């Protein structure tokens, strides 16, 4: 099974990630997931694709730290984070987070916390391709 935290060019399977998470503990009573997708419309413009750049030397360790922090902070049984790089077309998956806990509340809270922290702390940048040209995305909530 691939690592629980990954940055990769290729697409991922949500089912495989959830199966891998579930296999880590039979005490897991709730799994919450977040799937970030490439939208075909942003800031009033059509978007055909999104390309990503990352400082991988910092990004992967930061994502591993986030996973460890989430496990400790929300008493998770396990968590997984996968983020794609390269070029992603509108409608494709970008990022997947899965958090497993004994009960649903910490799983849901951890999932929200993980994606919010990832956006703040992981050095990845995205550029949208529109009919008017390309533009880097400005962070927003």
């Amino acid at each position, binding site marked *: 099974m691939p690592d629980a935290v990954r940055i990769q060019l290729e697409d991922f399977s949500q089912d495989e990630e959830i199966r891998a998470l579930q296999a880590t503990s039979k005490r897991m009573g709730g799994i919450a997931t977040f799937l970030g997708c490439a939208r075909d419309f942003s800031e009033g413009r059509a978007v055909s694709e999104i390309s990503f750049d990352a*400082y991988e030397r910092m990004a992967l360790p930061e994502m591993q730290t986030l996973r460890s922090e989430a496990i400790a902070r929300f008493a998770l049984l396990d968590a997984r984070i996968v983020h794609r790089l390269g070029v992603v077309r509108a409608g494709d998956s970008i990022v997947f987070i899965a958090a497993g806990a004994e009960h649903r509340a910490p799983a849901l809270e951890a999932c929200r916390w993980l994606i919010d922290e*990832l956006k703040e702390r992981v050095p990845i940048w995205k550029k949208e391709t529109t009919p008017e040209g390309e533009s880097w995305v400005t962070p927003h909530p």
Partner: protein
Amino acid sequence: MITVLFFGPVAERLGQSRLEVAHQAGMRLQDVRDQLQARYPEAFSLVSLAAVNGQHERDFAVALADHSEVVFMSKFSGG
């Protein structure tokens, strides 16, 4: 030598993703920033974060060892 890397919007505005700065005794992160900001003000107007050797560095007074890897970054937009 200090290796300085750039990514995303900063790299695009700079027109390159890597350059080198001669190391000097007592050199601080702020010194490298000041030096490059004077040469590339447009690119550095986007910079709000820095990393040294793969670690986010908030203290711009930190001393840099020779052969350090420094990154000046704009706000992140992954996810």
